[in-house]
């Protein structure tokens, strides 16, 4: 009897701790998500929203190339950004963790993430000025005689990717660095004892052990990048639209909330698919 009472009390206590988080998730994720899913099954006809459930919005997405192209543009840009960011962030994180003296590492990290301190919008507009015909890059390259005509690096996909990579390298540097400093130096010593050179140690020991950090950062980069509206809007020059821009067009120009909801669900499913792929891959590596 006493045991049961204790168990009940413990159970109630546990629910007491969990309940606020559950209620929060229910109120601010589950309910809005269910509403959005239901909304995506209605449709806008003329200037009215018709409350009859159908799959018209989803069918339209797969039948109109301009809409489908939004998703492929998003995926192409996001995958490019994620790969480039990992390739740039890993060496940076490694240098900070392995080559910078311990007492200076905090300062090095602060310097690495310094651009985080400026507004995202301001940073994007700044990039536009830097990359423009008369911007710092073109002026410098022309000044030293490397190019005769300015490079076309503003208001296109290149500019969008540069803007994204600048931001996400900072994020990835943090996640990879935190992983690197947790590695015991004994791994390296053991590898050296077994005759591995520096590259073999990195390739067969360090890299696999830091994969969780890389994958966590890469997944965060993927999620934040594919859902971003501001950078492509400011730096892309509207020469191609990504999915969030198309969602904004449905809301801002057409007041077509059902279509916007359907596109948002598609975006969420894409992120979910990315998560499933990452999670499975990570599990295999850990096995």
């Amino acid at each position, binding site marked *: 009897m006493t045991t049961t009472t204790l168990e009940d009390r413990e159970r109630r206590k546990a629910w007491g701790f969990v309940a606020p988080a559950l209620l929060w998730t229910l109120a601010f994720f589950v309910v809005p998500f269910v509403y959005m899913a239901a909304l995506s099954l209605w449709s806008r006809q003329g200037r009215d929203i018709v409350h009859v459930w159908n799959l018209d919005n989803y069918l339209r997405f797969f039948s109109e190339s301009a809409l489908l192209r939004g998703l492929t543009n998003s995926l192409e840009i996001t995958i490019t950004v994620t790969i480039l960011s990992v390739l740039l962030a890993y060496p940076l994180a490694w240098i900070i963790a392995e080559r910078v003296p311990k007492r200076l590492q905090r300062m090095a990290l602060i310097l690495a993430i310094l651009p985080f301190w400026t507004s995202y919008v301001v940073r994007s507009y700044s990039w536009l000025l830097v990359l423009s015909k008369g911007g710092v890059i073109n002026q410098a390259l022309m000044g030293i005689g490397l190019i005769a005509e300015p490079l076309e690096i503003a208001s296109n996909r290149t500019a969008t990717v540069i803007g994204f990579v600048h931001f996400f390298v900072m994020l990835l540097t943090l996640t990879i660095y935190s992983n690197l400093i947790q590695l015991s130096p004994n791994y390296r010593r053991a590898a050296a004892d077994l005759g591995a050179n520096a590259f073999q140690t990195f390739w067969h020991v360090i890299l696999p052990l830091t994969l969780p950090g890389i994958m966590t950062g890469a997944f965060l980069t993927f999620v934040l990048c594919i859902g971003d509206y501001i950078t492509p809007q400011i730096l892309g020059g509207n020469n191609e639209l990504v999915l969030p821009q198309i969602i904004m067009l449905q809301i801002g*120009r057409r007041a077509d909330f059902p279509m916007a909801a359907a596109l948002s669900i598609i975006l969420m499913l894409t992120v979910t698919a990315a998560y499933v792929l990452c999670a499975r891959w990570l599990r295999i590596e850990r096995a």
Partner: protein
Amino acid sequence: MTRSFEGAAARRFFMSTIALGALAAGQANATEELNALVWCDHTDPALIEPFETANDVKVNLKEYEGTGAGISILEQSQPGDWDVMVIDAVDVHRVIDMGVLGEMPANALPSADLFPELVMNDNNTKDGKTYAITEKFGYNTISYDKTKVDPKDMEDLSVIWSDKYKGRIALYDYYLPMIGLVQLGLGKKTADLSDADMPAIEEKLAAMKAASKQVSDVVSSQTALATGEVDILVGGGEWITASLAKDKPNLDWTVPKQGAVRWAQSIAVMKDSKNPDLALKFVQYILSPEGQARLATSSCYWGMPTNQKAGEHLDGEQKKALRWDDQAGYLKNTQLYPIPSAELDKKMQDAWTNMMQQ
């Protein structure tokens, strides 16, 4: 020149911030409040402050861009949330049909002082009742850097889909005036635009995209032209270049021989306004010669006042930038935005989205 432009923008931002702060402090204890759904030109403290001070009222401004966004906000609002609304003149009937606009007494409005072409009874009235009044207008046409292009080329609309300035053109990202411009370039009237015109329009839109560097909103378009990223802005006009006239005298605009599209914005009182008398008073202030001059030279964008008496409150430089003396000719050679049915509107938006994805 880039520096002076940025400096001017920074100055404007700094002064606006100070002015907004002063405005907020000064009106914090106002006895009444007015909620206005407006375009960005109404958020200039130099325009709003005199009305607030004179009437001991705090005007709460919610800014939006594009009729779709405005209608979205209305659909999500409760009756009484808004007292006043600014809307594209060609879209007034869309809002009248939603049943949210209130009738304004025609004799309380200075319609007789307006440029006759801007009275726009077909747009602002329904069944003999006045629901809105046109407050500002201008042109979606061609803005350019006269030091980098041949101004004579800008007199022909076909330049916007030719290869002569390939990669040096920005397209203003608003499908209605842009498709209207294409229709004019094809030698047709914007008012006659129908489904049958869309294939030819789509073909020209594709050519325009191929010749352009970017498709951009107001800020990005203005920045691109001012920084030399592009030399021509299709869809621009005095609203892009006039406020930069002092810092960037190399920027100019023209109405080509085929004509241009005329934009006009109207202001209306909401049917469920909690303070309809004060709302009407606000409309009267905006339409007064002094209010009109302030609205015309608002920090967000400039445009022609509809009230001809506003000229008394504009100085020579301001009139020159607005091309005050050329208005008679411009009004004759420009046409209103197309007013599409819901179905045609969807086709036009699809055509525009397709163009951007090419």
